[in-house]
């Protein structure tokens, strides 16, 4: 399984994401935002956390217009997998690969702490390794994680079982306690918490490793 990890100016979780994929057994290629194509044979694109383009204009807005974004869009429309974490989630919503937007946290503060997540669905290659309703601990580190979407789309996300993770104790005001959502074909995942920061007991937890192992395992079978 081959994963491409994108780096924008201001990305700071790209290396951690690459390590998480590698640890799960994936081959990782690194991609620069100015690249206009993905390497041959990429199964999944990882859009990492950080502060792409300094969060100028809106978080993720400028990254969403970069040359690599067009290649990611094409990859997704072919049915390719894409995971966006934190700033990566913001980029995917700005690209309209996922619905909704991430607004300023309701409490206006940057939040950096481990939070409890509830696995809301196991019907995805990302979450199949967890049990439905399982509570896991994953860190968040964001200022703009307040997931906002119109009522109709929110009902659709819930009706189609596309909420991947919910917060146990909502830290940022997100509608429906949503921490992560899936695309219609369940192959694009966006989430604010950082599973790549908990893939080794030395990190203080390994609950995120399940996500990467599940993904790599499912793709090995495909």
């Amino acid at each position, binding site marked *: 399984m081959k994963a491409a990890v994108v780096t924008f100016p201001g990305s700071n979780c790209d290396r951690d994401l690459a390590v998480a994929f590698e640890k799960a057994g994936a081959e990782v290629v690194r991609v620069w935002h100015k690249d206009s194509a993905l390497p041959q044979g990429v199964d999944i694109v990882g859009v990492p956390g950080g502060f792409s383009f300094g969060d100028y204009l809106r978080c993720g807005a400028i990254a969403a*217009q970069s040359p690599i974004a067009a290649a990611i869009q094409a990859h997704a429309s072919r049915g390719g997998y894409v995971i966006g974490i934190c700033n990566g989630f913001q980029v995917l919503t700005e690209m309209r690969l996922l619905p909704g937007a991430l*607004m300023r*946290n309701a409490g206006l503060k940057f939040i950096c702490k481990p939070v409890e997540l509830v696995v809301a669905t196991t019907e995805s290659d990302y979450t199949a390794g967890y049990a439905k309703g399982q509570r896991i601990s994953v860190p968040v580190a964001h200022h703009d994680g307040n997931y906002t979407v119109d009522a109709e789309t929110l009902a659709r996300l819930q009706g189609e079982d596309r909420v991947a993770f919910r917060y146990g104790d909502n830290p940022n005001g997100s509608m429906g306690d949503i921490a992560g959502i899936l695309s219609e074909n369940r192959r694009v995942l966006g989430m604010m918490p950082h599973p790549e920061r908990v893939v080794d007991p030395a990190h203080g937890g390994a609950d995120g490793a399940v996500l990467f192992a599940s993904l790599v395992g499912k793709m090995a079978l495909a």
Partner: protein
Amino acid sequence: MKARVTVMLKTGVLDVQGEAVRRALGTLGFEGVEAVRQGKVIELDLAATDKTAAEAEVAAMCEKLLANTVIEKYSVEIA
């Protein structure tokens, strides 16, 4: 030709920053501020000379980049 783009959150989208500003104004003794909405203004210098064409182009810029129409609305003034 100059364009001025005003981007505001759509009606109904909770503006947590505007609300914090409203409360701070109350703390400072400014009474009767019933609501605050915070947005941004973007000024563009354009080479275009045709007003209608410039308006259309700036609207396209707003749709593609300057505003996130999921949560924001925009207005364009050309001068």
